[in-house]
């Protein structure tokens, strides 16, 4: 205890971060694996360059991707082998995975464009997907922004409605009595079932899409929030009362933070549902967005474009996921770590 006090705040934060990194990224640094992963990437490049292709593909984008990947690994390993910090922990942990990824790139390239074991138009090489993304970049960037914007508005609205309803239903018995039966019955309906109606009822299809996505979100969030509020120990409410908290202060300083762990469980459940509804509603009603792009590509029979949209979704949704994860980590920083 005393030792930690003598450290400066900066040093302490650094030590804690290093500690956290080592528990999370537990595979130890092995120079062999680091070199192997570089070899695997070089093999991927060489294979793509020298094995004759059976399908006509522009490999330019793929090669740049491999070079960028290679340079990234070289930099990370160079830093890691000199400085014993978080980068070393991180790169040591992922060296094996990177090696396998390099080999997978070789394999997928061989069975698609090189030997055509699985064929066009339904199976394409990663090189083709990257080339497609490069060709369609303007349209894809616009689609991605559009999807992200739609998702963000709808998700925030759905979450806010869910949290507010959940807090009130969890805290006030009267409110719960009059609203919970409706929540149970209405919330359980899959948002997709409302689709034909919303397309007619709402003045614009954009509003209809917002409604559908928000509808998929509010129920799990509200449901988990109610449980969260009800799980707060009465001790906290009672000490708040003896400390002179008003009802509003109890809501703000006891109910909300106390329910927050559960609210986040609801948010993460809702996140998956919201992605599904985003793609479905864009496929049906929209003139923009990644869902629309997929539907359009299907119409013209270009499955490479479908793959391109899927790859972009994988990246976009992963980024959203890790952002929400970071948000949760920060908001619940007061919690005891379980490991």
């Amino acid at each position: 205890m005393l030792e930690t006090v003598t450290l400066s705040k900066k040093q302490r934060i650094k030590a804690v971060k290093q500690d956290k990194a080592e528990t999370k990224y537990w595979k130890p640094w092995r120079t062999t694996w680091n070199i192997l992963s570089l070899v695997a990437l070089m093999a991927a490049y060489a294979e793509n360059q020298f094995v004759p292709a059976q399908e006509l593909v522009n490999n330019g984008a793929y090669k740049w991707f491999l070079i960028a990947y290679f340079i990234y690994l070289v930099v990370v390993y160079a830093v890691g082998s000199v400085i014993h910090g978080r980068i070393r922990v991180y790169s040591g942990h992922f060296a094996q995975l990177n090696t396998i990824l390099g080999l997978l790139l070789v394999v997928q390239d061989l069975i698609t464009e090189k030997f055509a074991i699985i064929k066009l138009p339904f199976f394409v090489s990663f090189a083709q997907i990257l080339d497609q993304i490069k060709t369609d970049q303007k349209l894809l960037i616009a689609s991605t922004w559009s999807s992200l914007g739609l998702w963000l508005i709808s998700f925030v609205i759905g979450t806010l409605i869910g949290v507010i309803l959940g807090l009130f239903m969890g805290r006030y018995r009267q409110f719960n009595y009059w609203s919970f039966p409706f929540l149970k019955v209405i919330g359980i309906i899959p948002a997709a079932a409302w689709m034909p109606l919303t397309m007619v009822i709402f003045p614009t299809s954009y509003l209809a899409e917002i409604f559908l996505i928000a509808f998929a979100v509010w129920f799990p969030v509200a449901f988990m929030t109610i449980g969260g509020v009800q799980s707060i120990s009465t001790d906290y409410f009672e000490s708040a009362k003896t400390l002179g908290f008003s009802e509003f202060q109890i809501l703000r300083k006891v109910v909300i933070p106390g329910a927050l762990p559960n609210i986040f469980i609801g948010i993460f459940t809702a996140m998956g549902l919201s992605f599904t509804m985003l793609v479905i509603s864009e496929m049906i009603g929209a003139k923009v967005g990644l869902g629309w792009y997929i539907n359009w590509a299907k119409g013209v029979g270009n499955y490479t474009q479908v793959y391109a949209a899927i790859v972009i979704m994988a990246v976009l949704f992963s980024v959203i996921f890790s952002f929400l994860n970071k948000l949760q980590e920060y908001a619940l920083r007061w919690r005891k770590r379980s490991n």
Partner: protein
Amino acid sequence: MVQLTVQNVNRVLHDNAGQRINVLEDINFNVNSGEFISIIGPSGCGKTTLLRLISGLDQPEEGQLTVDGKPITHPDVSRGYVFQHGSLFPWETIKENISSGLKAVYGRHYDKKLVDHYIDLMGLKGFESAYPHQVSGGMAQRAALARSIVLRPELLLLDEPMGALDAFTRADVQNVIQRVWKQTRTTMILVTHDIDEAIYLGTRIIVMTPRPGRIKEIVTNPLTFPRDRTSDDFLKFRRTIQDKLNFGVTEN
């Protein structure tokens, strides 16, 4: 000067079978300003129930509790309450916890120096920005004590705040409580099942018996301050209290 009056108080609960249980029966006593009252008795004698009635968290079925003549109807900042497990808000740092009551009552312009003063007095310096799960049980209890005392209550109710602590930490928190009591002259009521603790801290000791919870006797503590836990007088008085507590047990 009489401050708290407890008159003919009965607390009646019903069990699952609908059977009437007298948790507290015919409780009568007065507390004068500046006293330190220890309430001692075996578990199930209704000590905590009584303390909750005094705080206003619960209401008695019969009888009346008054502070300075005014009946107690709800919890109030003038009556601080330290729970057995501290119940610091786990989502607030130690410092935020200690200032939470002040912020609630006085808004943003509360007396920040007062908070620092009690952080110092309770030996919590260096741990202001730690979260409750990161500090020891003794520190958490001292912080909980600071959180209540910083509001300058007229009456501080302590519900076995040392119950979950080990012997060394317990003695340490006892000394802190005594120091605060002497410095602030706050009237305190401590519920405990530890005889030494009751004697070490209390100016008067209320001995209770269980089923139904009644006051067996109210004993004035003859010991002067500073008190020595190993002195002959202390041990002799301890024996007196022990005998009063054991009465019911030997009878069975």
